[in-house]
């Protein structure tokens, strides 16, 4: 953790009286007594100092990098005038390496913390200040973050972290490490209690990366944010790999290759405005219901385009996003991880105003099969929804799990099990629509009736079977003639929704254009659903290790 390449030793500046556009406390009449500053004056000075962080020069440098300051970010994220700051007077306690000098003390240290409102709803925020010691994490910095996290847990409100930090405050040594651990512990304790969101807006390296990794959602800003355990210099010295910061841990890498980040935005302003939009989908805590906003889209709207969407040939692809966009309110779908494991689509939308989580196989990519990455992506999303009372709507068109040595050696068995586990464990309302294929084990996995699906529908184009007709016939009639006839018979028997419908494994076969109406009504019914799993200390989800190296 000490090997933080990104930490740039900051020359410490004492800032003069810099004008700030932010509201400070109202100016008080100056009163001097006996040549010494009055308390009132000191309060005022400290407040002013806290507002400008590392000083105008560092602010200009931050702007020069295309980044906003910690306070500017908070101001954009929260409703106007809603931010209530805590700990503006906290200073670091380090006395080594000259850190105790007055000019090395900054009121508030390298993070701004507090609470405020997003569209009127409570949220706790910390925003790391890169202008103060490169946003490095001191004991005091960690303590400030822990304070708001503890309070967020007490009142049940989400925590948003705006990360822009070079890493540990090296001057503080173990105190800084202890600070990280304190935060990690709170991240874990808060997990499943209040939503936690990280927005990476600058460097985030070393041990610091584990805090975002523990939160529910990690977003990044393109070109100006990086996440890595060790920077390019260390990588070069250890593995002799030449890699740039951007390639190693930029937004593109993490949203498309590693799956560490859930989405990336163009710049600070875009990211913060999108975060406001995203926040509106989330319940405030695990004790709050899925939020319902005013909705202008009629809940009984028919979607005629869906009746012809699924191609007649079962080998032809279509875009599951077309299904999702046309069914949800106002075509408004906030997709999570849109560039990673694209064979599954997950994200938030609303049905008649109520937030729902959408999971859908994507026939356009790899036929919508389940593989390691898509299983893990889906599982994580389903577990979030279940933890926070967000109903799950699943659109199924899955030909099965992806075969091959790469997948088997990579542990598709245990990774696929995660998705199965997540759907089975979930007690929120679960509605499933089989649009076309639901083959093999993947049928079971995708929120089937057998895993306590509340309402399971099939479109007329649905085919629920152990496998495709061709493969099935090759096994059943191995070495026999008349394979073509047998195949036709298999298609006739299984390539339709009836085998599942006669057994009650789907509740109804619905006309696709009525799907929106059906789901809206079902959600209304299921709003009072109560289901509990058996008492346990905690469940043992098949976490198991990551996919083997070098096999992509």
């Amino acid at each position: 953790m000490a090997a933080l390449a990104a930490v740039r030793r900051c020359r410490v500046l004492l800032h003069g009286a810099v004008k700030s556009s932010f509201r400070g406390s109202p100016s008080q009449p100056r009163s001097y007594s006996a040549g010494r500053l009055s308390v009132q004056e000191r309060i005022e000075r400290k407040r002013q100092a806290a507002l400008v962080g590392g000083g105008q020069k560092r602010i200009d440098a931050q702007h020069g990098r295309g980044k906003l300051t910690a306070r500017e970010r908070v101001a954009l994220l929260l409703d106007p005038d809603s931010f209530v700051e805590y700990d503006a007077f906290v200073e670091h306690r380090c006395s080594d390496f000259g850190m105790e000098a007055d000019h090395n003390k900054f009121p508030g240290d390298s993070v701004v913390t507090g609470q405020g409102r997003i569209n009127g709803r409570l949220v706790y925020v910390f925003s790391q200040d890169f202008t103060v010691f490169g946003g490095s994490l001191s004991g005091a910095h960690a303590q400030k973050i822990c304070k708001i996290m503890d309070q967020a847990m007490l009142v049940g409100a989400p925590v948003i972290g705006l990360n822009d930090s070079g890493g540990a405050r090296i001057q503080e040594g173990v105190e800084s490490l202890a600070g990280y651990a304190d935060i990690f512990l709170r991240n874990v304790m808060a997990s499943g209690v209040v939503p936690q969101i990280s927005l990476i807006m600058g460097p985030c390296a070393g041990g610091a990366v584990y805090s975002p990794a523990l939160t529910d959602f990690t977003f990044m800003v393109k070109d100006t944010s990086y996440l890595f355990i060790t920077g390019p210099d260390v990588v070069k010295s250890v593995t002799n790999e030449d890699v740039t910061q951007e390639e190693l841990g930029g937004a593109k890498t993490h949203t498309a290759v590693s799956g560490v980040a859930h989405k990336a935005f163009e710049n600070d302003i875009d990211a913060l405005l999108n975060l406001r939009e995203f926040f509106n989908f989330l319940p405030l805590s695990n004790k709050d219901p899925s939020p319902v906003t005013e909705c202008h889209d009629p809940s009984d709207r028919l979607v005629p385009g869906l009746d012809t969407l699924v191609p007649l040939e079962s080998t032809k692809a279509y875009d599951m996003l077309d299904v999702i966009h046309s069914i949800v309110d106002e075509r408004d779908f906030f997709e999570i991880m849109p560039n990673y494991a694209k064979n599954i689509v997950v994200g938030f939308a609303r049905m008649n105003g109520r937030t729902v989580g959408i999971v859908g196989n994507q026939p356009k990519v790899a036929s919508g099969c389940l593989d390691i990455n898509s299983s893990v992506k889906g599982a994580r999303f389903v577990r979030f929804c279940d933890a926070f009372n967000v109903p799950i709507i699943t659109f199924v068109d899955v030909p099965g799990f992806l075969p091959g040595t790469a997948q088997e050696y990579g542990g598709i068995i245990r990774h696929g099990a995660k998705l199965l586990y997540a759907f089975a464990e979930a007690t929120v309302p679960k509605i499933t629509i089989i649009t076309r294929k639901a083959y093999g084990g993947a049928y079971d996995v995708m929120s089937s009736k057998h895993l306590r699906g509340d309402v399971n529908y099939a479109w007329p184009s649905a085919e629920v079977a152990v496998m495709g007709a061709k493969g099935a016939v090759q096994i059943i009639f191995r070495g026999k003639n008349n394979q073509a006839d047998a195949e036709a018979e298999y298609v006739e028997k299984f390539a339709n929704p009836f085998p599942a419908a006669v057994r009650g494994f789907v509740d109804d076969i619905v006309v696709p254009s009525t799907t929106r109406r059906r789901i809206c009504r079902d959600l209304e019914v299921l709003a009072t659903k109560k289901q509990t799993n058996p008492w346990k200390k905690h469940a043992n989800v098949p976490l198991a290790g990551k996919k083997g190296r070098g096999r992509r």
Partner: protein
Amino acid sequence: MAAYRISPALQRVLHAVKHAAFRSRCCIIVSRAQYSTVYDHNEKTFDKILIANRGEIACRVMKTCKKMGIKTVAVHSDVDANAVHVKMADEAVCVGPAPTSKSYLNMDAIMNAIRQTGAQAVHPGYGFLSENKEFAKRLAAEGVSFIGPDTHAIQAMGDKIESKLIAKAAKVNTIPGFDGVVKDADEAVRIANEIGYPVMIKASAGGGGKGMRIAWNDEETREGFRFSSQEAASSFGDDRLLIEKFIDNPRHIEIQVLADKHGNALWLNERECSIQRRNQKVVEEAPSTFLDPETRRAMGEQAVSLAKAVNYSSAGTVEFLVDSRKNFYFLEMNTRLQVEHPITECITGLDLVQQMIRIAKGFPLQHTQAEIPINGWAIESRVYAEDPYKSFGLPSIGRLSQYQEPLNLHNVRVDSGIEEGSDISIYYDPMISKLVTYGATRAEALKKMEDALDNYVIRGVTHNIPLLREIIVHPRFISGDISTKFLPEVYPEGFKGHQLTATGRKELLATAASLFVAAQLRAQKFLGDLRVSNTQQERRSWELCVELEKGVHMLGVSRSGFMTFILKVEIDGDKLEVSSDWNLASPLLTVTLNGIHRTLQCLSRNAAGEISLQYLGTTFKLRVLSKLAAALSVHMPEKVPEDTSSILRSPMPGTVVAVSVKAGDTVAEGQEICVIEAMKMQNSMTAAKTAKVRSVHCKPGETVGEGDLLVELE
């Protein structure tokens, strides 16, 4: 004849039309008594008709068949299995795979479909087999009626040289020119000098602008002869050419005729079709602003005499070029139902398809010439899936993710063969629909067209509504000062979309700002949530910064009243009052700006404040930010857009026909790099700069999508 009186039969139809289930299946909705003709169910007609076509025209024909109590058979390619015309028909037969040569032009398969279904007659629509004499012959051989003229008329009028000779003999004005086949370039020059320049050299078998050249001197004549004969040979397998006088700046006006098998013929007035691009019509109207009653009668009578000269029976169209002095010259005769027939139906009250079916069954015409009225004015806009910003329209494809025809308006007729969810594919004509508006006067019809275009919701494909919306409000169009060169003359630099006026700009800015505020207010409305702040004041005013076309404007928005939702917007000292129902789910956005009603469309809106609005047909991109966000946005890094001069992307979906370069070649600016064929059109892709070719990403025969990388330059 009492035009537009609603007959009881029609009333029943209108009632059925209002029924939702019918509406979803029916492509043509009548919002007024469109036809005055009576459907006489005692007149013995065909029991079953096969429609050898697809899309809107197949639906159009079926609609009349249903009214006449005739069963319908659709034919379709496999990709069209779910198409509207298939759903509308009583029976449907698949005649082959997607390419037209294997399905809709596949005579064997269509003949089989006729036998299989027992159809007694075939309506060919337009295009495909509609003017194919071979097809008409084969039908005749099997005793199936062809709903169109007989083989002889198709043949006679299908050949430009022969038709001209017949026209001349029938005393129809023809363009001065050489009536025979031109042997060689020398003869071409000699003839050109006889006629006088400019001259037009064109293929005898041609059509659609192919094999056509204009020459202004001897040298161009020689060159034109060479090119035209090559093109004619490759396009039509027939290199015969003819030469005639070129009428500069003409109008294209055509006369609709109707003739029966008993020697009766009528002319149903004219259609003005001068607004064209690449010889394809875009906006048509009936009647023409240009014709006086004498010219109209003269043209009508000549058209009828031509029809009689070839014993024509069925509906047909005689096309004329009309010069500025109202001299008119015969161009050609189309022996089929025209695309633009609805405008004639609107002003005459006749159902042309019904008349064609009656004639084919052998009934005499029901009307006399004196009974053919011109009632009101009708305008037709051809709504295409194409990008009007590229040479007035390059085809685009896609799925109609949202589609809503402006049928809530009166006096609007939409002929279409698609619905929400339909695919516009590369295989067929990219026409979405024919939008027809009608009014007692031209001004009324044009105003209606403005409203109809503003209310037409098309999402998922690029469409030409921006261009249509601009044409119909252009002063030259409104004054009737048009010719076939209208588009290149009015937009010499190419079509650039609506140019905002100062007032228009303010309206647009105010609407965007108000929409932003409406969305912000709605975002705070959580229902039944006790945890939403009570101490936070509801906002009543906003300071916003709106970006439009690189201009940045500061706007103040304030909300008045508690329950009402009227926003007062201040822009540069001007005040606008904006009211609307602010339905954020509707694709249409109806606002009242200082008392003026406008229908805009919100195409997209995102969290970052970007809003796309369709205003007066054209899409404008705006960005609305709070004052704070706008002030801070100066710090945001400028993202460098991709250098497009070294990258060649396909401007449309299509097939690569030829690639003229390979990696390592040096190309000059403007040099052809490859040729993309889309919708039967070949488009030459050229280099944007002189450079070396780095890599080639396409090969002949490959299908490419819009925006696909073709070639990279260094």
